[in-house]
Each structure stands twice: as structure tokens, then as C-alpha cells.
């Protein structure tokens, strides 16, 4: 049994006219990557910032490493590292100076170069943050959360706004941090990111957690876990009728004779494939549904970028 490092119970955050977080409870286990997944405005950041001690909860309890945030936030601060959503750092200090200064806040001497090496930024040690690209800034912002060698690292939308390559770089970095034995809790609205990175995911919508589980179990919990997409110009009307009875058939993006189908069981999947085969499909892909499919199933919508 793994230790619980964060435990959140019945957390509520109310603003004047809005219940941003509504009765949220979950636990984060030691050494895992835990993801809060949801659209903008779902309450992910608010939840995270309440755990970080930046915002005060309206009600509910939060314990971090066994310490109550209301009473022992100062102790907690020593043991956590925080990366904020799209935050900048001092303009007129070099990367090295910023890391050393932040280390001082914890009373620690920081080996800034070693941290910078971790994200291939050691050659920028004496540059200002303003000289970095978006991906570099984001990487820097993550290692800046490591200056105190924290037990738990909070990453708020670490890859938002990055191009796919830079995003992949960051995933590697986050995996590296996990390998050091640290627990990571992150928010994201990229389903793919949650699927690749997170051991466990909580799907949030309108301030509530809709579903929470290990990532692969979540996907399997989908009602229609199997997916076929195919392009078959020769397919007949009665074959399509047959398929429609077996699962959910949809015309993919309006392209003629290009279909996608979702099925509940392996048996149905096998039958469907053999039917499609008779009409010599020009392309046929069989797959598992993704987190995105589950998300659509749960919320009835896609996440818009």
C-alpha cells in the first residue's frame, strides 16, 4: 500500500457569484504523477492553488504530507515546489541568479548549473529569462520549482501553449522528476498528455470531479472501449444497417464512405471486422478508445483549445 501524500476532503471554494470548486475529494499517492484533467474554468487551478496555500478554501480540509494546510503551511512550503500557470520570473536577474536566490528563500545553497543541465539550459545560465523561448521558459519554470528538492511538485498546465516537440521534451523532463522519487500533481487540458504521463487522473468539470481512477482503468471504463475506423467505397447499404445494430456507427467528418464505429465487446468487434472485410476496405484501423473518447462520453463535449 502506497502512502498518501496529499489528501483533499470535501473541498469547496466559493466566490461571490460562483462555486469554483464544489465538494472535491481525492488523494495523491507517494511517487505517482496525478493529473487533474478538464477544460479551462473547470476548477483545476483553483483546486491546485488551494493545496499550494495560495488561495483559502471556503470549506473542506487539505492535508499535505500529513500536515494540515490551515495550521502548518509554513512547514509545508519547505517541502513542496510550485510551478504556476504562465508565470514569469525576475527580468533583470540571470537564470543562475534566480535559482540561487530562490534557493536562499529556503536557506539552501543551490547548484544552479546542475539544475540547468537537467533541462539543457546550462549555456543560458547567464542570460535573462526574457531571452528564452516559450519551451525554455517553461522548462526553467519547472526546475525553479525544484530548488528546495521538494517531495511534491505542483505543475499547473506545464505544456500549455507549447508546440508538440517542446511538449514532448517537457514530458520527458516530468518523467525524469518522477524517477527521482518525487510526487507530481499536474493540471492539463490535453487528454493525450494525461494519458501519456499520469498514473492516475481525475476528470473535472464545473468544479466537480466526474471520475477518478488509474488512467488505463479510466479508459477501459468507457462503455464502448473498442473503436474501428475504415474507408470502404464499395460497402453496401444493408451491411451498414447490420453494423449500426451492433454499435455506434458514425460518418467520420462527413467524408464519403469514411466511417468510425464504437463497440462494447470484443465479440462484436470481431464480427464487425469480418463484415467490413467482405467489402474490401481501402483502409481499416482497429483501436482502443482513448481518454478523449471517455471525456466526450462523460461530458458530452470535446475540450476546445
Amino acid at each position, binding site marked *: 500500500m502506497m502512502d498518501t501524500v496529499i489528501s483533499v476532503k470535501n473541498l469547496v471554494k466559493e466566490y461571490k457569484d460562483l462555486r469554483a470548486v464544489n465538494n472535491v475529494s481525492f488523494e495523491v499517492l507517494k511517487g505517482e504523477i496525478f493529473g487533474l484533467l478538464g477544460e479551462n474554468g473547470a476548477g483545476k487551478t483553483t483546486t491546485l492553488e488551494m493545496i499550494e496555500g495560495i488561495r483559502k478554501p471556503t470549506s473542506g480540509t487539505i492535508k499535505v504530507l500529513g500536515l494540515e494546510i490551515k495550521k502548518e503551511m509554513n512547514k509545508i512550503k519547505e517541502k513542496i515546489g*510550485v510551478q504556476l500557470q504562465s508565470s514569469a520570473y525576475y527580468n533583470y536577474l540571470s537564470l543562475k541568479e534566480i535559482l540561487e536566490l530562490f534557493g536562499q528563500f529556503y536557506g539552501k545553497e543551490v547548484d544552479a548549473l546542475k539544475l540547468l543541465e537537467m533541462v539543457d539550459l546550462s549555456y543560458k545560465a547567464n542570460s535573462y529569462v526574457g531571452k528564452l523561448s516559450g519551451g525554455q521558459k517553461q522548462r526553467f519554470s519547472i526546475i525553479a520549482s525544484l530548488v528546495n528538492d521538494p517531495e511534491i511538485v505542483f505543475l499547473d498546465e506545464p505544456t500549455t501553449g507549447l508546440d508538440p516537440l517542446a511538449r514532448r521534451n517537457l514530458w520527458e523532463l516530468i518523467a525524469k522528476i518522477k524517477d527521482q522519487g518525487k510526487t507530481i500533481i499536474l493540471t492539463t487540458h490535453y487528454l493525450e498528455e494525461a494519458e501519456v504521463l499520469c498514473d492516475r487522473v481525475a476528470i473535472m468539470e464545473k468544479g466537480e470531479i466526474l471520475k477518478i481512477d488509474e488512467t488505463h482503468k479510466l479508459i477501459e471504463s468507457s462503455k464502448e472501449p473498442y473503436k474501428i475506423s475504415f474507408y470502404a467505397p464499395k460497402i453496401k447499404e444493408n451491411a451498414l444497417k447490420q453494423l449500426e445494430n451492433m454499435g455506434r456507427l458514425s460518418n467520420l467528418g462527413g467524408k464519403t464512405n469514411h466511417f468510425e464505429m464504437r463497440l462494447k465487446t470484443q465479440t462484436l468487434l470481431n464480427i464487425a471486422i469480418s463484415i467490413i472485410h467482405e467489402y474490401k476496405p481501402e483502409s481499416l484501423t482497429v483501436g482502443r478508445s482513448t481518454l478523449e473518447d471517455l471525456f466526450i462520453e462523460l461530458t458530452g463535449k470535446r475540450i476546445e483549445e
Partner: protein
Amino acid sequence: MYKLFLADLKMLIRNKQALFWSLFFPLIFTFVFGSFFAKGDGGSGTLSIVNKSNTEIAKNFESSLKDTGIFKVQNDDSFDKAKELVDKDKVSVAVYIPEKFGSLEPGDPKKIKIYYVPTNRQAGSIIESFSNTYLTSVNMQVQKALPIFSVEKEEGNKPKFNYFDFILIGLIGMALMNSSVQGVAIAMSRYKEDKILKRLTTTPVKSWQFIGAEVFSRLVLNFVQVSLILLVGVYAYDAHINGSIFLVYILSLIGAILFQSMGFVIAAFSKTTDAAEGMSTAITIPMMFLAGVFFPIDSLPKWLSSIVQYLPLAPLLKNLRGVALEKNSVFDNPYNMGLVLVWIVIMLLIAAKRFRLSEE
């Protein structure tokens, strides 16, 4: 906190643009005002004198005129040329003493000519009344008459200072105000916008440590500011600081604290950096002109001066001038000192209530 102080100091020095505004901008003002007002001419401009007579009376007239120090006096050789200089606004007024003026022979000229244009009427009337007074006394001497009525004048025995000295202290106040109000307001709202403040709240740093380091590093800058202005004023333009330099610094730093706390208040109320910039300009520019940087508040209409005397910069400048120019002690003007302290307390209270490192 010491490391944070050093880091803040480093950042202040590296921010070249802000450094220019806080250090060199006031120095430019010092140079400009120094060049206009610092030397010799008591603010009335230059006078051209054409003296064709070599009588005793004419010579004495010329030298007394030079001795008054009201004008910078230059000699020219023809009245026409001198008049041309007046027309071209090269000199404020021309004075012509004709040949043989001052001899008592009946046929010789008995009149001094003065020439000025209406725009320089003030200079004109000064020289007119000077000449009248001077010639009246000469007339009486010649006629061996004794004056019956006269004026007794008494000059205050306060230390002497001129308009430039007055302005120099004003410029110190202006520099402290501009760099502290704008510097703090802009830096803090940028930190807020960039979420640097929020990021700091996730570390064990306490807000008082953060703010303390910020304030102290800026006080160092203020110290340099005041020193540069004083150095240029005193060494390049012979400004007089009659009172205690030490007290001038102490008052300056008290002023800086007042203006920094105003900066924090502005940062607390503005949502963006641009808003902070606008708000601080809207506060500092009117204060610069109304609170007595360039001219005494008393010369404003009464209704206006009775209001502007309460602006934070006004009592500070009165104190600073009292100490620097009139050799007062800080306690000679408890009312103004009190006003400054009241402002500090008000600003600190608002800042403490409204300025937060992060929103809730």
C-alpha cells in the same frame, strides 16, 4: 533578506531605462535650471550699458549699477547696437549715458536714456527706478540739499539663498517622488502581473522580508539620487546648502519612504502595469507643478495654495528647504513634519490593507 536586498539592488542597477529616469532625468533638470538661474544675474537678465561719458558721476553710476547684482552687465560701444540687442532679445534692457553727462556745464546733456521692449517691462522698470533713485541722490548732492524723508531698510538675517538654491531642493523632492512612486508602483504591478508575487508566496519568504528588501534597495538608489543632485548643484552651480547635509539626507529618505508607500498603494489598486504607470503619472505630474518644486506655493491663488499645501510633496519640500536653506532644525516646523508623518501613516495603512502578494 540580505540576499534578496542584494538581488533587488542588482535589478535596479540593471534596469537601465528606469535608472535613467531616476538618476539622470533630475540631473538634466539641475543642469537646465543651474544654467538659467545659478550665476550672477539675479534672474532679471543682462543689461547693456553704453557709457560715452568719463565724468565722475557717470563712472559712479555705471559701477553702482554693476554692484547691485540685479543684472548681468555688459558694455557696448553704441546705443544703436545696444538697442538692436534689446530688439533681438539678446539683452533685457539698454542704458545710454551720453558724452559729457555728469558735467555741470549748462549745454551738456542731462539725461540718461533707457531702452527696452514691452516684453521686458519688468527689467525696464527696475532699471528706471534704480536710475531715478540714483540720480535723485546725485541731484541732491549737487544742490547740497539734505533728504527729509527716507526709507530705512532691513534685510533678514536668515542665511542667503537664491532662486536656484530654492529649485535645487525642489528637484530633490521631485526626483524622490518620481522614482519612488513610479518605480514601486510599476515594479510591483509588473511583479503582480507576471505572478512573481504569487510565486513568492509559495516559498517560505515572508511578505515583510520581500517588501523590506525592496524598500531598502530603493533607499540606496534614493541616496545616490540625492547625492548626485547635490554634487552637481553645489559644485557646478555654486548652490548654497546652508543647513545640515545630514538632516537633508534624513528628510529625503523619510520622503522616499512616503513616496514608496504611495507606490505600493497604487500597485494595490491597479490591475495592470499600464494602469499603474498611468495612475502614478497622474499623481506625480500635477504634484510636481502644484506642490512647490519650481516656485513657492504662496505665489498660487489663495484658494489653490490652501489646498495644495496638503499634498504630500508640499510639506516635505517646506521641511527640506527649511533645513537646507534656512538652517532650521527638523523641529522648527512641527506642523509640516507632522503632515509628512501623517501621510506616511495613511499610505502605510492603506498599503497594508490592500496590497497583497496574491489574490484570494
